[in-house]
C-alpha cells in the first residue's frame, strides 16, 4: 500500500529532492496546500476506486495517516 501511495504522491508533486516516508508531513513536507491535498485525494480515489469523504481528509496529517486509512478501507 505504501508503495502505491508513494507513487501517486510522487507523480503529483513532481519533486526529485524529497524522500517520501511514512513520517512525511502532508502539508509541510510535500509543500502542497489544502486544495491541492483534495486534488491528491481524488487521485487516491481513482487508484483505489473508493470515495473518501472530505471530512476524513482533515485527518491526513502524515503519509502514514493516508496509508492506514486506505488499508482500513480496503480491509
Amino acid at each position, binding site marked *: 500500500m505504501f508503495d502505491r501511495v508513494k507513487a501517486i504522491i510522487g507523480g503529483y508533486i513532481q519533486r526529485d529532492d524529497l524522500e517520501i516516508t511514512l513520517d512525511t508531513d502532508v502539508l*509541510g513536507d510535500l509543500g*502542497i*496546500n489544502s486544495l*491541492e491535498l483534495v486534488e491528491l485525494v481524488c487521485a487516491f480515489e481513482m487508484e483505489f476506486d473508493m470515495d473518501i469523504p472530505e471530512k476524513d481528509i482533515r485527518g491526513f*496529517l502524515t503519509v502514514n495517516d493516508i496509508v492506514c486509512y486506505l488499508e482500513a478501507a480496503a480491509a
Partner: protein
Amino acid sequence: MLARMRREPLNDIEPIRDLRCLLERGARVFLGKTAFSELTHAGEIVEVGYDQLHDDVRAMGTALLERGYRGKRIALIGENAYAWILAYFSIVNSGITVVPFDKELSCDELVELMDRADVDALCHTAAHTAEALAAVGALHSQTGRAIETIDAGSLTSGGLAPDFLPFGRDELARGNDCYDRLEIDPQATCSILFTSGTTGTSKGVLLSHGNLTANIKGACELVLCGIEDVFVSVLPIHHAYEDMAGILSPLYYGCAIGFCPSIKMLPKCLEVFRPTALCLVPLYVETFHDRIMRAVKQSGREKQFAFAQGVCAFLQRFGLNVADKLLAEPRAAFGGRLELIICGGASLDPTYAPFYRSLGVNLIQGYGVSECSPIVSVNRNNEYKDDSIGRIVSCAEVRIDDDGQIWVRGASVMSGYLDEKDDVLVDGWFPTGDLGRVDEDGFLYITGRCKDIIVLSNGKNIMPQEVERCLVSCESIAEAVVVAGAETGNGSEHLVAHIVPDFESLDLSADEPEALAVAEERIRSEIKESNRKLVYYKRVAAYVLHTKPFEKTTTRKVKRFLLVGNLEGMRYV
C-alpha cells in the same frame, strides 16, 4: 502632479428594507428566472427559480411561526446547498435570529457556541444530520439543556425540510397568513455570526436586516452584475463574505447561483455550471494560477502561452476580448466563460490580477470584516487598483486614526457583540484592527494589522493564543508564539510556532550540547499530537526553536513583532 482617476457614478441600486423584501423583489422582478442550482449524484442539474425560493421561504417561515419559534434563536449548520439557504431566509424572515455555524467545528465547539448563543434549535442540512444530532445530544448531557433539531433536508436527495415545508404549504393553502402579517423590524438582530475575538474566544457579531440590506446596496453600487451572470458558491456558506458577495448581492441582480457542496466537487461544478463570476479567497486564486502554469509547463507550450497572454492583454486595451479564442484551454478550467473574480478574506498578491486579466478574467479585490456585514470596500469592474482593496461602500464611512488603524461607521456596522457589556463601538465607530490608508482617488489600502489575529490565505482567521494554549500544555514546551508562514504562495496557509523548550520538565540542562536535539525530537512529536486536537486550519506546520525565553514587555507580554516574519531555522513538523 499625478492625474486623479475619474470617478464613475455608482450603480443605481434601490434601497431594500429587509431580507424579506429582497426575496419579494426577486420573485416579482425575476419571475421564471433560476436563482439556485444543485447537482445530483448522477450529475443532473436541479434548479430553483426566484418565485419558488419566495414560495418555499413563505411556507417554511409559516411552519416555523406555527411551531412557536418567533423571537427565538436557531443555529444553522450545513454545506453550500439550497436547503441551507431555505433555512436561513425562513428563519430571518420570520422574526427569528439565525446563528450560522462553520460545518468544520468539532462537537465540543458546537456545544460551546450553542450554549453561549442560547439557541432553541439546531437546523441542519440532510448531509449534516449525524453531526447535528451528536451536538444536540452532547449539549443535553453537558449542560442539561434540551433543544430541538430541524432537518432542512436536501433539494436533490430526500426532499426539503420534510417536517416543516409540507406542513407550511398546507397551512398557507388553508389561508394561514401569520408569515405575511409579521412585520420585520429592520433594526432588530436577525443574525449572530461567531468570529475570531481579540482574546482568543470567538465573539458573536449581532447583525440586523438593516445592516445586511445596507451592505447589499453598498456592494452592488460598486460591483456590477446582471441577470445573465452565474455564480458558483464554493466558500463556506456560514461566512459573512460568501453570504454577502456570493449570495445576497447576486440575488439582488437576479443572478443564478450554483452550489458547490465540497471542494472535491469544484472541478465538476465549474464544468457544469460554467460560472461567469466567482467569489474566492487568495488560496483559490493562487492554486488556480499554479495549476494553469503547471499544465502549460507539462504541455511544453510556455512560449505560445506567454505570446497568447500578451496578445490578449494588448487587445484588451482596445476593448477587444480574444481570450476565448487564444486561451480557450486555460479558461476551460473555470468552465470557459468566467469574467469576474472577487477576491477577499485575506490579502492577495497584486501580481495575480494582470495574469487573470490576460485570460479574460477581471480579478478585483475587496475587504470586509464580519462586524461590518461584512464589505467595507471593493474595487469596481472598470475602476480598480490591483494593490488596493477598493473603494469604500456608500453605507460606511472610513477614518484612519493617528496609529494608522482603520475605523468604520455606518448603516452596515453591527450593534455590538453577544453578551458583551463593554461597547466596542466608539461613537458608532468600529475599530477593525487593520492598519491602512486611503489614497487621493479614494481607494483603501491595508498596510498591516494592529491586532494579533492571523489571516491565512484561505480566509480563515486564527487567534494565535488559542493554538499557543494548546502547545504550552505539552510537557516539552515552555513558551510558544504562533505566527503565519510565508506571506505569499502556498505557504501562506500555514502556521509556524516559535518554541522555547521546557528543558526542566524534560530533565535536561539548556547548557548541554545535546539538550536541544533531544528536546526537539520530543517537541516535534508533541506538536503532532497537539495538531490532532485542532481543526485542520489551526494546525502548526512548522516550528522555530529558541533556546532563550522570548523578549517581553514591561507588562510581561511577549514582543510578537520580533518573531513575525523571522523564520530563520524553521523546520517542518
